[in-house]
């Protein structure tokens, strides 16, 4: 598994996909958070609103921060120093690789599902 201490230059794609899978029931929130942060750094409330806007899902505060805590511990995101009480987060290089690997894997699953659905609908 990729870890914060992993030397730079190592391609973590395959392993980090597993890392997100290892988030269990937080894999969904983690993907949403990473996707939101791929646009720009955001604090908790901005993340909630952005995710609600692009995914139609409102992450409850406890779930959001449970996922943020895990993502930060795994080195996939990092907090930015701020004078505001609301601390923004941004993606790390490892987080970018992890998100890409995870979304690629999801796209493969989506492609297979859509192809098979098209087959059924074609027969019907």
């Amino acid at each position, binding site marked *: 598994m990729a870890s914060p201490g992993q030397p730079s230059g190592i391609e973590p794609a395959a392993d980090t996909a597993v890392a997100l899978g*290892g988030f269990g029931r937080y894999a969904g929130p983690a993907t949403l958070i990473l996707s939101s942060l791929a646009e720009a750094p955001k604090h908790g409330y901005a993340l909630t609103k952005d995710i609600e806007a692009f995914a139609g899902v409102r992450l409850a*505060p406890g779930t959001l921060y449970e996922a943020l805590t895990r993502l930060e511990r795994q080195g996939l995101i990092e907090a930015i120093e701020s004078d505001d009480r609301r601390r923004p987060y941004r993606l790390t290089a490892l987080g970018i690789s992890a998100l890409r690997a995870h979304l690629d894997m999801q796209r493969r699953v989506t492609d297979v599902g859509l192809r098979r659905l098209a087959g059924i609908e074609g027969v019907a």
Partner: protein
Amino acid sequence: MIPPVDRAQRRAARLLRWYPKAWRRRYGEEFSALLVAEFAERPSSWRRTADVACSGLLARLTNTGLTGGALEPAAQIQASLATLCAAVAVFLAFALAIWSQLTIGWQWSRPDTAPTALAMVAMSALMLLFVSLALLAALPVAWGVVLRVRRGQAARLWVPSLLLLLGGVALAVGARHFAQHGWPGTGGHPWAGRGVVSGAVGSFTWAATLSISAYWAHPNVLLSFPAAEVAWMAASPIAMICVVAGATQIVRRLDLSPRLLRYESRLGSTAAAAMIAFLAAACLWIIDGGGGPRSLFQTGAIDVGGLVVMALAFAVAHRAMRLARGAQPLLAPPR
């Protein structure tokens, strides 16, 4: 009248109490800010309250190694092993309480049913296994503590080591005393050679676990016991808690190498398997109903209650072991 912003901040502060102190220190301020913004948008939501409570409890569990994917692999294994240690200790306390009563019974007479005799032999063999596993697990950890002391790096280990030592000595001295001067019909008799284990071992473990007793539900009977024994029944759990707290804190605070973590995990898996076997043997005895001769092996509500606690301790140990094993492949390879 309290301004709405202050009220929201107080509500946020109340919800924050679900989380452990370390978490609050790191995320408390920003999480409160998020909650205040949420309250402004949706003043009341029981789902949100439940979500915060669940996440707070999960954050507390993370430090015990009972949630996966939240810690570094080595930290996860170490936290899981510490929790496993505590779960096995609770299991063993209740297992010893049951087993010692039965072994003392066998000093008087052999059980008159084959299932109870079989259960007793199996439980005795498993106790031997538990002792061997405990020694094998403790020795390298104790050696690690000694090395740290010699290097002058044991500042964080003094308190848990002292707790472990004091609790262990108090438990050993008290159990030895009450095993020799116990109340009539049990301790103090030189029964060696008539049961599956020596009478000295049986009465020592019986005295050590005297606090696990149905007499707590019968205060009138309890008052008729000598005051020193009642005091021991009340004090010995504190000594046990000191031993367990000291041992788990040492496991958590000592830097264990990946190799040692793997070794301890293997012992932990064996201990978990032994726990299942012990539970099965205890169930066999309870289903058989124990009985005679002279009701020496009779089962009671305290035994069924003990079995339930042991099953819960096993569930915790199993969860801890599963997470420790899951994190093992992610450890640095052995040199």
